[in-house]
């Protein structure tokens, strides 16, 4: 689907825009394959059969898989839970990473560098090794089997702090000094100078954060017991995964589409803003 523009191979050693464009299309095409297959499978009336593996639809589309998936789990409730989790985490994170980022970027205090490196060390830890200690803490705080318990460990983000520190350091100090002369407090300086200028970084971080927590499975599975509090990923897994059995691919594809659709739609709507934020925040 993408090879049509691969006509002009120029041998100057440099990549021409055309060639670069073609290569991008090719890679994009490769990345699209699983998604396309999911689309094809979700509307396939045959859940099992030779046609199942085909990327080219050869059937009359049906909504039966969606009906089955929809009936299998309480999607609106799971969706609401996921929304509460992801947006709740993000709201707190924005406050904590802004303040921490400002502290590391602009405040002078003894042991600042050491403190910052200790913070970054957190990035090296695989979250899985922290499951038991985290869960013990959550239970002691009385947050076991609650949405707040799912959210709490993520309220401070090392990655976000790092990102905001870099963004704040790139902002000329003179702007802050000018505000200081006018008598602005720390919070006024952060709110009126730093935050507006670091907006692209904040947006970029928000995308990473929301996507990560939207897709998370193991930690919510550990914390949540009540069926009413399940997020989408756990709800989806409860009817699509098998240990010794076999899978109905059509229903799985339809369910996966239902779960990922909100993110996909959000991305499609705000695509330009997202891309711009990544470009200007330096994450490419």
């Amino acid at each position, binding site marked *: 689907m993408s090879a049509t523009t691969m006509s002009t191979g120029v041998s100057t050693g440099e990549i021409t825009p055309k060639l670069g464009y073609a290569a991008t299309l090719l890679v994009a095409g490769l990345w699209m394959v699983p998604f396309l297959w999911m689309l094809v499978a979700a509307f396939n009336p045959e859940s099992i059969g030779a046609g199942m593996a085909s990327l080219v639809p050869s059937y009359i589309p049906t909504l039966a898989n969606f009906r089955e998936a929809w009936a299998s789990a309480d999607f609106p409730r799971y969706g609401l839970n996921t929304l509460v989790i992801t947006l709740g985490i993000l709201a707190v994170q924005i406050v904590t990473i802004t303040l921490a980022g400002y502290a590391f970027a602009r405040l002078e205090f003894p042991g600042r560098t050491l403190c910052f490196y200790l913070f970054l060390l957190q990035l090296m830890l695989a979250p899985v090794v922290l499951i*038991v200690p985290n869960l*013990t803490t959550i239970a*002691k705080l009385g947050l076991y089997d609650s949405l707040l318990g799912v959210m709490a460990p993520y309220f401070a983000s090392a990655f976000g702090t790092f990102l905001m520190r870099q963004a704040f350091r790139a902002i000329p100090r003179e702007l802050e000094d000018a505000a200081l002369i006018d008598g602005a407090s720390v919070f006024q300086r952060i709110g009126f100078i730093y935050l507006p200028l670091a907006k692209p970084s904040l947006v970029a971080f928000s995308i990473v954060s929301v996507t990560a927590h939207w897709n998370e499975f193991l930690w919510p599975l*550990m914390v949540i017991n009540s069926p009413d509090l*399940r997020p989408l990923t756990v709800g989806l897994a*409860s009817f699509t995964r098998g240990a010794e*059995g076999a*899978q109905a691919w059509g229903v799985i594809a339809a369910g996966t589409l239902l779960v990922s659709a909100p993110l996909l739609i959000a991305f499609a709507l705000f695509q330009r803003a997202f891309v711009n934020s990544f470009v200007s925040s330096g994450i490419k």
Partner: protein
Amino acid sequence: MTTTRRNILAGAALAASFALSPAFAQAPTEIELFFPVPVDGQLARDMAAMIKEFNEKNPSIKATPVYTGSYDETLIKTRAAMKAGKPPAAVIMSANFLLDLKIEGEIQAMDGLIKADGKTNDQFMGQFFDALHGNAVLDRQVYGVPFHNSTPLLYVNTDHLKEAGLDPDKLPANWEELVTTAKKLTKRDGDRVTRWGMMMPSNYDYGGWILQALTHSNGGQWFNVDYGGEVYYDTPSMLGALTFWSDLIAKHKVHPAGVQAGGAVSSAFLSGQASMMLLSTGSLTHIRTNAKFPYKVAFVPKNVKNEVPIGGASLVIPTGVEGERRKAAWTLINWMTSPEKSGWWSRATGYFAPNKAAYDMPEMKAFLAKNPDAGIAVSQLAVAKPWFATYKTVPVRKAIEDELAAVLSGKKTPKEALVAAQKGADEIMRPYVEQTALKLPTN
């Protein structure tokens, strides 16, 4: 500050007096049941329906079914919840994790509960098939109640047999016949294989179990049934079993290379891209509802003898579950493993009912008359042995499953793989072995 503290104290006292008052004593005992989804989504709904019925029939108990992922994730979640001081009242646990949980003191013996019901352990376990006792009774104490169990089965597409000019009434009974049949069933288009004669799942958890089935069929044993610190990975019977699997791929070219997931194997079988497969009885209902062709099931083909491991899950009560919650969990466990319920669950899933009396019920007799394939698994129980269970079962299993994957992708020879697996497993079990078998009197 003091006023708030006083308020809290007053509130606590008020709450305590409420808790002691008769009105509150009638509040149902709340318990959770952790369950993995063993087959597919329909079962999560079946489980919800089953627990709903239980709650309606037992108004003094309110049980909540909690979905906990795969068997391995269920173990992680149960352990994490216990360490956090929130043990669930009951768990449907992979049957071979019981030994490790017992060694770590994480599940409780049910002897007291059985005695309170006026039964001996033997009388209580007598209602379940003998083959299941090994994964439930440890040191003569009952640690688990069998809920749904399985054995591997050979599934054969009989249309493909006919097409290849073979007798659909004569299914491969030994390894020799399996290879010749698989060769005839495999279809090639030049170098490309369009239909595989044979497929076996080799993903984590499944691969070890299938390899155990081959080892048993080859006259071997996977582990020391009486002692949790020994596995027999580097032995001739295991070498024969692993070589057989690797030969199906490299020598006979009737089995695809690399790791095959359980779902992929059953999908290949249902779509006609594989003619035979070894898969759990737990998939029987799924295959029966989705197969658009005649199929048959048979015992796992033997090399030396007919013998297979048990699979599936048992109900356990974690340590720390006491008083009313413990009693309520026991009521739930007994209800779920009764002849009616275990029979119903068996018909819904394809797993066999561990309770022997389930097969005397009229619904089950009618079901078996209509679906003779479900009876094959039951008759195979006569030659079934316990599922491998050691100290730290999951890592010890992974030690050989990683090597199995290397062999199936042609990166290692079976002998190299088994030597490495044995070394890995011995290292994992060493602390236990030193604390038990190697802990000798010094003076």
